């Protein structure tokens, strides 16, 4: 009997570890580790690969961070990320249109996108408050409709800057706009560390760290705690005198603004503004990144964001090189689709406590 309990305990410890870490997460982490070990053997340059992962982490970190407030307030995974991305794109294009260049254009892009994010976020939050329980599906379609509406707007709006409009027609924005001379790499070059092939975009990482710290600090204020309470048990929160709708609205606005800043950070790393249908599928990678990091439909922390983005981007960057060198077959796209959507499915089928 004594032996039995010990055995149970031991198994319990391992089981507990798997439980807390999550089986799919463990598999993904091991897979990434395997890729990293294999990389030198198949002739890929490890330092380049690792700096690629770090660079991609720095581009995407803020976009994934944008999930956190809405998950906390119980609005579910923010499939409506494109709405925030559109505010960011408006800020980016207007900043260039007004003739700002260099690092100032980045600052102005953030400033200009802020009012858009506030307005869109308020409308979006109002809508989500009316349809509690069906947030995720409707968020997806709010994102899609806003992207397709803006497709028309990019053509119609009277942009004039020759760097952005179609050369021949003189109107209508191009699908990709180069940021050279504007804010290409402004954050990444700030205090950047370069040793041979190894690069760290210090500025972008710092920028992400500041935002992440701000969100972490916010979640520990009175309003932030209220937000967590609303997410984990709305009935209890209402009984405690918290205005549930107002808190949810605040979380949606925060998520939208973070998405706007997130896309700007992404652009400065990537070097291009992508318009039209590009924001369409940007929600899914961000959603699956935070889920891989250990978040669930109604629980997410900054740590989930960091781990998830590293794992997800790690797989995205490593699979093509390793696979290509190993079996001369680029299956990375298929693997990415299966892993990211499989992760979302896994999270959706979990029984979530305190769900409506």
């Amino acid at each position: 009997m004594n032996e039995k309990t010990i055995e149970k305990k031991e198994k319990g410890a391992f089981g507990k570890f798997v439980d807390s870490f999550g089986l799919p997460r463990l598999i993904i982490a091991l897979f990434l580790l395997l890729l990293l070990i294999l990389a030198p053997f198949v002739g890929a340059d490890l330092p380049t690969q690792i700096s690629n992962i770090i660079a991609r982490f720095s581009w995407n970190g803020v976009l994934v961070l944008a999930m956190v407030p809405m998950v906390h307030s119980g609005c579910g995974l923010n499939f409506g990320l494109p709405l925030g991305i559109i505010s960011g794109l408006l800020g980016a294009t207007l900043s260039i249109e007004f003739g700002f260049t260099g690092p100032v254009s980045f600052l102005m892009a953030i400033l200009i996108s802020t009012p858009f994010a506030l307005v869109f976020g308020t409308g979006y939050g109002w809508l989500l408050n009316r349809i509690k329980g069906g947030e995720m599906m409707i968020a997806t379609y709010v994102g899609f409709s806003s992207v397709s509406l803006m497709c028309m707007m990019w053509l119609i709006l009277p942009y004039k800057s020759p760097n952005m409009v179609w050369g021949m027609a003189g109107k209508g924005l191009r699908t990709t706009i180069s940021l050279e001379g504007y804010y290409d790499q402004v954050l990444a070059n700030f205090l950047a560390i370069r040793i041979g092939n190894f690069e760290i975009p210090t500025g972008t990482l710092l920028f992400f760290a500041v935002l992440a710290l701000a969100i972490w600090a916010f979640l520990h204020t009175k309003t932030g705690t209220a937000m967590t309470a609303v997410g984990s048990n709305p009935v209890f929160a209402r009984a405690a005198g918290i205005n549930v709708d107002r808190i949810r609205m605040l979380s949606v606005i925060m998520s939208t603004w973070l998405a706007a800043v997130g896309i700007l950070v992404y652009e400065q790393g990537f070097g291009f503004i992508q318009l039209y249908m590009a924001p369409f599928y940007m929600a899914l990678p961000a959603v699956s990144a935070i889920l891989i990091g250990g978040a669930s439909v109604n629980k997410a922390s900054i740590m989930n964001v960091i781990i998830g983005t590293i794992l997800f981007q790690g797989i995205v960057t490593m699979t093509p090189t390793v696979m290509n060198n190993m079996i001369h077959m680029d299956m990375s796209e298929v693997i990415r689709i299966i892993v990211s959507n499989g992760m979302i499915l896994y999270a959706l089928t979990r029984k979530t406590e305190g769900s409506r």
Partner: protein
Amino acid sequence: MNKTSKKKVNTDMGELMRRGSVPLMFILICAVCIPLSGLSPNMLVNEIVTRMGRNAFLILSLLIPIMAGMGLNFGMTLGAMAGEIGLILVSDWQIVGIPGMVLAMIISVPISVLLGFFCGKILNMAKGREMITSYIISYFINGIYQLVVLYLMGSVIPIRHTSIKLPRGYGIRNTVSLLNMRQMLDNLIPLRITLPGVGEVKIPVMTFIVIAVLCFFIVWFRRTKLGQDMRAVGQDLGVSRDSGINVERTRILSIIISTVLAGFGMIIYLQNMGNIATYSSHSQIGMFCIAALLVGGASVDKASIGNVFLGVVLFHLMFIVAPRAGAAITGDSMIGEYFRVFVSYAVITVALVMYETNKRRAKSRESERLREAQMEEEG
């Protein structure tokens, strides 16, 4: 008594207004766009008849999960993929015409059943979130589909003909031609009728007969034991479980039937188109079918065969005229293209919002009634 009946009439009117609003809006859009597009009535009617034959079967496949209370089945894409796999194999085996189509359908059935079973199982694990889950499943299976078609076909699954194989030796080309099968079903019984003021209209008689058979099947199916069970499950999960219905099994069956039908629908759709866009044919099909159904006045929890046909006509009328009309107004044809995509998404968004608000309202009304009953008991 009088008061309650009056109230009921009022809500019925409101219900009618709500249901009618989306079709009405589309009639208005079409009324504005048709003259602007400058398309002749002959062309319009021909296009609508063709598209009716092409899409109606696919849209009808959505009806059964709605009946079972599982919402709009975004997972119908799974069936579409099964249908495509069937067609790819059949065109490799060089079986042409109607026998090829039938064989493709037979091949698609086991794949559809398997995928539908998987989808239903997962949806049972995510009750209350069926739509978003089925939507993500369609992406997930799309990944598996690409794995099979792009890597396994030709390397594991034998594909002989180089015309459909990629030059590298495995994987299927971006487009697979179905020239030997093109509009075989549509033209099986050729019929051209001349309408006054419109001119000659080509009618795909056989396709319409197949669609009619499916309609009768759905009407009949509603009356069977299984159909009744599905309606009960759609009404109330708890009550039907108490009355001895195997809720899980019923829900899985409804998804399987829908997936199999979607597979057939996709084969009919592709024989009309005449080629398969291997990696993109299925990706948009779910969205367009769902949008068309909603345009016809259906909602997430209620849809009829009438909604399907009204929806096909109105949605595709908009689809045909919008690019031309947009070009006429703004001088840029892309605006019309984006406009119709926007409208498709907006319709789905509005329908989902209406469904969720109604659900919430019904729930709060319920709880109020409960509270009143409790008060009465106490007082």
